[in-house]
């Protein structure tokens, strides 16, 4: 009954207590980490299962609907929570071996990051969203800098400046919203927002777009991402690409649908901007030599697809978009964890360095190849299904141009991912010495890549979770009534 808040409170408590635990026993840190992550995953499962039956509203501090802060778990939040649970658990297990720098701080910051992302997806309050948004940002900067290399400091600084700008715009939009609605609760804000003058509403939309857009890499604002990904540890890349970017996008989608509704103007902005985003990102990705940069640009491209689908504003569009959001989280995490194994064992960071690894590490390479094929959008993987749904949805709503560019984008991504696959399975000059890989690195990668395949063959598994999402997005009165308890 009290589980929803534990999803946020448990990682916070773990993060706070790790410092004290270390004083008593250094060995206990990892044990506590694993136990906490496992319990967290179990809690998420139970909450998601409950939310699939009936959306949950949890009033913090027992204040009634409007006075305090409430957590709202509808299908969309539940999907995000599930994604967070799976990825966070996989990355924590992976980190047990991968992370050999500032271990304690790494776990502390990771748990704070997970709590922040979770808070962003569950909260039903505008300002609370901002607070969690900042927690996520600050822990991200720290995790980028944690390797203490030259590149990581510059990346972190660039990220920090962009992040602070985006935070300033989001805060400005939130306080303007408070002034015109007199409330912070999503439900009441949404109910009163229509009375605001047109110009104010437009400004607020622009500020939210700039603010969250910087974080989820809308194309002219994406410049920080490749530099950041280069210097960061691979486990953070997986978290960032799978969760941090997605959470910002989630927040933006939630706000747009609640406050503004999907009007034609906003719809067109999102669709064409989405198309622009994935085209530019694909073309830039094509020129990359560095693996992490390539994957970074590919992450930006997937954001473009999701924006396009969500911007359609139809039921099928939302289903397609949220399904792609979920799938991309899995695929990108697999790729980054796989690349992390390559760089951990043989120090490969460029595409050329991959030569011959397909033969010396067949299983890991195979897992990476599965995720690659999925992200290009080839059957029978999950990426194919979600991209196909996006194409269909765009076609139905007669955005023919947008629909036309979806396969073009896939074709472009085929171009650069083929380079990766080719490098993996071409003969290297010298014989490669590969030390055995710890199971803690391999198993999360295998599990995630298997998930890509399973979701592709049995799409009904996750579609059951997603089918209810349009109900709460399209008609904001459903969400308002849910939050107000009517």
């Amino acid at each position, binding site marked *: 009954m*009290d589980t929803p*808040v534990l999803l946020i*409170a448990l990682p*916070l*408590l773990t*993060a*706070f*207590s*790790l*410092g*004290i635990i270390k*004083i008593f026993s250094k060995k206990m840190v990892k044990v506590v980490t694993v136990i906490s992550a496992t319990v967290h995953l179990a809690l998420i499962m139970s909450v998601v299962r409950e939310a699939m039956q009936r959306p949950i509203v*949890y*009033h*913090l*501090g*027992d*204040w009634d609907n*409007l*006075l*305090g*802060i409430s957590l709202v778990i509808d299908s969309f939040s539940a999907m995000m929570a599930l994604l967070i649970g799976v990825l966070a658990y996989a990355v924590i297990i992976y980190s047990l071996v991968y992370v050999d720098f*500032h271990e304690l*701080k790494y776990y*502390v*910051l990771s748990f*704070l990051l997970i*709590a*922040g992302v979770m*808070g962003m997806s569950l909260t039903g309050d505008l*300002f*609370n969203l901002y*607070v*969690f948004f*900042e*927690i996520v940002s*600050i*822990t991200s*900067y*720290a995790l980028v*800098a*944690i390797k*203490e290399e030259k590149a990581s400091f510059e990346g972190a600084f660039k990220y920090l400046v962009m992040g602070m700008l985006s935070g300033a715009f989001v805060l*400005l939009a939130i306080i*303007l919203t408070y*002034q*015109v*609605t*007199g*409330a*912070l609760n999503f439900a*009441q804000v949404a109910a*009163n927002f229509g*009375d*605001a*003058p047109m*110009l*104010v509403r437009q*400004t607020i939309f*622009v500020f939210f777009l700039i603010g969250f857009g910087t974080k989820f890499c809308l194309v002219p604002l994406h410049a920080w991402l490749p530099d950041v990904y280069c210097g960061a540890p691979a486990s953070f890349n997986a978290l960032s690409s799978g969760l941090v970017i997605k959470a910002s996008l989630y927040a933006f989608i939630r706000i747009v649908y609640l406050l503004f509704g999907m009007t034609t103007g906003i719809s067109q902005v999102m669709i064409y901007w989405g198309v622009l985003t994935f085209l530019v990102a694909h073309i830039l990705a094509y020129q990359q030599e560095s693996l992490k940069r390539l994957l970074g640009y590919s992450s930006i491209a997937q954001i473009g697809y999701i924006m396009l689908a969500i911007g359609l504003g139809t039921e099928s569009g939302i289903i397609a978009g949220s399904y792609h959001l979920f799938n991309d989280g899995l695929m990108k995490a697999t790729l980054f964890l796989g690349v992390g194994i390559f760089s951990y064992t043989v120090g490969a960071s460029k595409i050329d360095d991959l030569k011959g690894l397909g033969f010396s590490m067949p299983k890991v390479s195979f897992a990476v190849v599965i995720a690659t094929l999925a992200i290009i959008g080839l059957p029978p993987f999950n990426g194919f299904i979600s991209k196909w749904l996006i194409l269909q949805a765009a076609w139905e709503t007669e955005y023919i141009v947008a629909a036309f560019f979806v396969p073009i984008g896939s074709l472009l991504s085929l171009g650069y991912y083929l380079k990766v696959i080719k490098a993996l399975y071409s003969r290297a000059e010298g014989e490669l010495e590969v030390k055995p890989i710890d199971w803690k690195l391999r198993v999360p990668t295998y599990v995630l890549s298997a998930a890509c395949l399973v979701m592709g063959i049995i799409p009904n598994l996750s579609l059951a979770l997603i089918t209810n999402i349009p109900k709460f997005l399209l008609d904001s009165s459903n969400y308002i009534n849910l939050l107000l308890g009517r």
Partner: protein
Amino acid sequence: MRKFASLVVVVILSSLLMMTFLSLSTADYELSEHYINYGVEETKALNLVTAILFDYRAFDTLGEATVVFAVASTIAFLVPKRTASMISARFSIIMQQTTSLVIPFLFIIGAYIIAYGHISPGGGFAGGVILAVITILITVTFGIRYSDRQVRSRIKSFMESFGAMGFVLLGLLGMALGGNFLANANSHFNLGVPGDLISSGIIPHLNVMTGLKVAAGLSIMFNSLIKEE
């Protein structure tokens, strides 16, 4: 060229902002009206800002404390730990004696502001900053080595973790007593009489926890930033 382009962007944004300000409408602020009219009755805290921060929107404050925690632990690993020295002026004995004289009073003011946060202006954040000033003063006047010897960094991080944990545990206490997370009046805490020092349930306790956390966090941040390699 770059300057000109930036100028254009900035002018457009600023004028957009100005135009928005001029066309702002006001709403009926039911929420703040409610806080003003019933805030004291519901939370028994006279300071409404504290009532909002630590009761109605206590979850925000937990997030805020988390931000300070995250930054303090990040800065602590970013800067070197081994060679602790810093550029400083050598102060005369007058300065050192005055500092030692001031410190007890600072401690009293800090403690007062934390403890009376729900009655008068102040609270955990303001009081915590004043407590942090003590270590900052020691560092500036007597140098970083002395300061680190007086208040060991391990103790500071322990205090910080303890404060942050205390906040969450107090929240969970509300759940144990039958309410929701961070519930105050609704989980049968005795709220007392408004205006008393021991009143308004968990608010003063949360204030103490936040004060500990902020004081320790800020002194960790300052001492780490001032270290030289």
